[in-house]
């Protein structure tokens, strides 16, 4: 299904910690990221995609637009989704994750704002966050392309100019060219990824030193 990326604005990460931030020893284990969509109307959320960076659990709260004049409330749509099965070890720590509409606890129509609540209970990691966040809404159902006018309203048939002597019939030529094009498309579509096995270039394997890039 098609999807369209929604531009968002990510407010700075807020770390939640009990007690005085300056004096306490440990690192915060909860971070909250607010994601707003200033330039878009309330939309239906299709997918959230991001790259994890050492976050163990993710909760998402959503604020939706209500039609009545009640103020919009925050609703939890994802509760404690586990990204790292063992918070102390590297498993799942830098994986790419997609969360879809059907995994959410509530209906995701008319989304105004998202709040990502990241939790990392292990004290071993220096920092944790999510990166490369992308939010998608559903793309248009049928491609609404406008055809150029000449395609939808073809010009009335003109009398073709009389053929010069000795030239082949244009109708036959065009059908043959079409057949050739179909053949090349077929070959291009069935290209394999096997290598030919040559390691030299035109029989020459005289090398420089190895490159470091």
């Amino acid at each position, binding site marked *: 299904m098609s999807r369209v990326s929604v531009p968002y604005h990510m407010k700075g990460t807020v770390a939640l910690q009990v007690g005085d931030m300056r004096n306490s020893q440990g690192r915060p284990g909860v971070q909250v990221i607010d994601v707003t969509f200033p330039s878009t109307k309330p939309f239906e959320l299709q997918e959230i*995609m991001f*790259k994890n*960076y*050492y976050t163990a659990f993710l909760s998402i709260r959503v604020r939706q637009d209500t039609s009545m004049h009640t103020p919009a409330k925050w609703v939890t749509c994802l509760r404690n989704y586990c990204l790292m*099965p*063992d918070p*102390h*070890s*590297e*498993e799942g*720590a*830098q*994986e*790419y*994750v*997609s969360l*879809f509409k*059907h*995994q959410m606890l509530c209906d995701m129509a008319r989304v105004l704002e998202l709040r990502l609540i990241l939790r990392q209970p292990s*004290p*071993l*990691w*220096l*920092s*944790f966050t999510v990166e*490369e966040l*992308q939010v998608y809404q559903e793309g248009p159902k049928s491609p609404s392309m406008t055809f150029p006018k000449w395609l939808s309203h073809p010009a009335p048939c003109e009398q073709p100019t009389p053929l010069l002597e000795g030239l082949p019939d244009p109708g036959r030529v065009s059908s043959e060219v079409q057949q050739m094009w179909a053949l090349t498309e077929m070959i291009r579509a*069935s290209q*394999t*990824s*096997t*290598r030919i*096995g*040559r*390691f*030299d*270039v035109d029989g*020459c*394997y*005289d*090398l*420089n*030193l*190895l*490159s*470091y*890039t």
Partner: protein
Amino acid sequence: MLQEESDLSLIIAHIVQKLKSSNLYAQLERQAWISLQRPEIKLESLKEDIKEFFKITGWEKKLQNAVYSELSVFPLPSHPAAPPEHLKEPLVYMRKAQGSWEKRILKSLNSMCSELSIPLARKRPVGEQKELLSKWNEMGTDEPDLSLFRPVYAPKDFLEVLINLRNPNYENGDSLSFRTHLGLIQVPLKVKDIPELKEFFVELSLNTGQLGIDDSTQVPPELFENEHVRIGQKVLAEEDSAAAQQYVRQGSPTALRAELWALILNISSQPEDALYYEQLKTNVIQHDLLVDSLIYKDVKLTASNDDYYFVFEDYLYQVLLCFSRDTSVLGHFAYNSASPPKSYIRGKLGLEEYAVFYPPNGVIPFHGFSMYVAPLCFLYHEPFKLYQMFREMYVRFFFRLHSISSHPSGIVSLCLLFETLLQTYLPQLFYHLREIGAQPLRISFKWMVRAFSGYLATDQLLLLWDRILGYNSLEILAVLAAAVFAFRAVNLMEVTSLAAAEAVLADLSTLKVMPLLQIFLFATVT
């Protein structure tokens, strides 16, 4: 549910694309065309009739084996947004560490090249080509002057790199915490503990028959061995890769081992494969590479000095020299955290059309590399069959033993698994060895990097490699290393230096692998 279905269709599409470029696809197509002449194939039910035909004639089995092979080897396509580097290695700091390690190797190779004024690659003059062709089966008799060459690196250099591996986002401070790593490896990878290993290696448990234990002379063969051999012959007759892999977990009878391993790795010797090997041989004869001298040196230093393997010296040259010319090995770099070294044709620096990989297969051999091939020489006697088996074992297993990655079978995880097992189940021994400056990993690293080749007796080694194939994992190497330490614990508790500890563990050739593994996993009181 929707997500799982789309994942499944992605996996299926991926495997279909891979198989389309294989020989099997062409063969299946040809068979389908031929089958049209058979009377039972009717036009109305063409698809079902051809499928039935494939099932009866065994082609479906071959396809099943090919799909199973793809699933075991290639990691499944992960998230669509993940870049190709992510598939090689998901953790960024490990990719960087592997990159800088490779750079060091390249620098070393380049400096060897400039110091000795020997080109990286050289086209052989016709006279030399003829000479090499005539001496192809006895390259061991050649005694070139290799004194100036030195191996590019040895396992202990690689160990130093792994010891210095650090996650920048990890609490690496000096203060002791509940997760301080007392061993040499300092990265927090997930490794299995003994309850998980017991579940994983359930076929090795005390009440399951094992070759290596239940085929000893004191045990009457009617109890286990005869039945096991009979089942093995049946598995071979069925030609089913998955069944063979399951069977081999209890060990493989010596007579059936060569065929069983070929079935598990889905290697069937077609005439095209023999031709491909001949083509590689031609490449070896035409071009002389610096890497060839490294291979010669390695074989002379390791396999030729080994009591069991010196007879196979000529085979080793024939396999390893061809291996370094084989560009099909480049395919495994898609899931290997390492990358092949690149170079340019002389005079065309920077032009992409003249970029080549060096060596052609992208693998630079290190000290001990030839020991990966040596045990296979006992099983396969035709050079091209031996070559195919070695190549497949390398791109499935052995490459993980000398590249930095977070894979559960990668050498970093194996080292951590070894140290964790030792620390958890033999804490006194671990503490004692640490106190005398003999970190256990310093002794066991070389065993694991070579997959114990050259350290165990060959029949024991082959029993161990049966289990590597059967479980499609190298974790058994770490478990065996810990089991060896457990076995010699009493002697090790009395040593007072690293050298003495090395001496206690110097000779493993009398060890029986399967009883050690069984006792360590299933019979140690924890």
